[in-house]
């Protein structure tokens, strides 16, 4: 991590990046974890990995969300994400959600009523609310990761509940 000098020690680069403001980090990650826990795990994981590519977060691409795997998300589908619009591995619901996540990451204020209506219909109204909140905390964390140049590491931060490295997930499969 080269972007900021004099960061405190930490178990991972993410811990170091946020380590100068530990209370802020604690409260933010608490909201992050609670927000992800309310969302559809497999769906938000697909969106997280897709926006990680858009925003350039290799750190995020190196992590896997265990609850998503428990919901049946496999590496084969993750590897097919760049082709999610055409790949038969993806459902219409997933394509809508991932497309919405892309818009949210790139320019959320361009999201129109029709975009919202389509995804809300596919997910259900209450689930859609939690989905958008989860997108927001993922978006915020990824922007911080890229701005601080947090690199992929050998272990997932303990502050990210339910996350392991892709390598750990593969060996556990």
């Amino acid at each position, binding site marked *: 991590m*080269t*972007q*900021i*000098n*004099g*960061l405190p020690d930490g178990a991972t680069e993410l811990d170091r*990046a*946020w380590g*100068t*403001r*530990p*209370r*802020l980090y604690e*409260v*933010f990650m*608490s*909201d992050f974890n609670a*927000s992800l826990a*309310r969302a559809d795990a497999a769906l938000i994981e697909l969106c997280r990995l897709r926006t990680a590519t858009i*925003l*350039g977060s290799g750190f995020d691409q190196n992590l896997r969300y265990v609850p998503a795997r428990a919901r049946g998300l496999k590496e084969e589908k993750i590897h097919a994400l760049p082709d999610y619009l055409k790949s038969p591995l993806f459902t219409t619901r997933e394509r809508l959600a991932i497309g919405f996540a892309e818009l*949210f990451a790139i320019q*959320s*204020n361009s*999201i129109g*009523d029709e975009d*919202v*209506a389509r995804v*809300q219909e596919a997910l259900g*109204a*209450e689930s*859609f*609310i*939690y989905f*958008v*909140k989860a997108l*927001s905390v993922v*978006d*915020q964390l*990824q*922007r*911080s990761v*890229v*701005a*601080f140049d947090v690199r992929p590491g050998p272990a997932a931060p303990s502050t990210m509940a339910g996350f392991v490295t892709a390598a750990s997930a593969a060996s556990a499969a």
Partner: protein
Amino acid sequence: MSTIPRIPAELAAGFTMLTDGGDSPAAKIAIPAELTRLSGIPIAVEGSVTLDPVVHECIRLFNAKYQGCEYCMNARQAVAIQAGLNEDIVSKLTRFETSDLPPQIKAALRITSAVASAPQMVTKDVLDEARRHFSEQEVADIIYLSVLTTASKVAITLGVEPGKSASSRVFYPSDPVYGDSDDLKRALEAYAKKGFNVAGEAMAVPTTLHDAEAYKPAMTLSR
């Protein structure tokens, strides 16, 4: 952008931008009040970002404009006004690069702008320029604040952003929206000792520079 709820009214009911928790769907997706206390008000609550109040408010307002959050755009922090923020500065935020804003504000907003649009643009050059005006801790704080002030994207996307009329006033750091805590109380005492008014009457945000001149005397800082 929409301030008309895009979600069913029964799920949007009771939404506020900040919350200390609650069981309703709207309360669950609000920004935690403590997170805003730590990052959203320009006073040094323990563990929070510590930036010059004017720089802090410029970052918050830049992101408010960038994201299109009317609620965020039309609020002003009292301590920032007392420290020199005025509507002339606010009017130049969107086109800060070609403005005559001070170089330290431009340097901070280059980071904020990059974080909001394409965070890979937070390059070494951008950070080195910021380092000419800010300490390493302050540069990190600018990144934290730039990240956290994008949280309004949730309310905007869901159409539950409360809009201009809900916030067009000056917020004092003692305002109930920031909740209550011992560290906030200590921070308020410290600011009061520096001569800042930390609690005051609700005051409308001026819509023109002329209006801004009219309300300045009430905000005179006696530091």
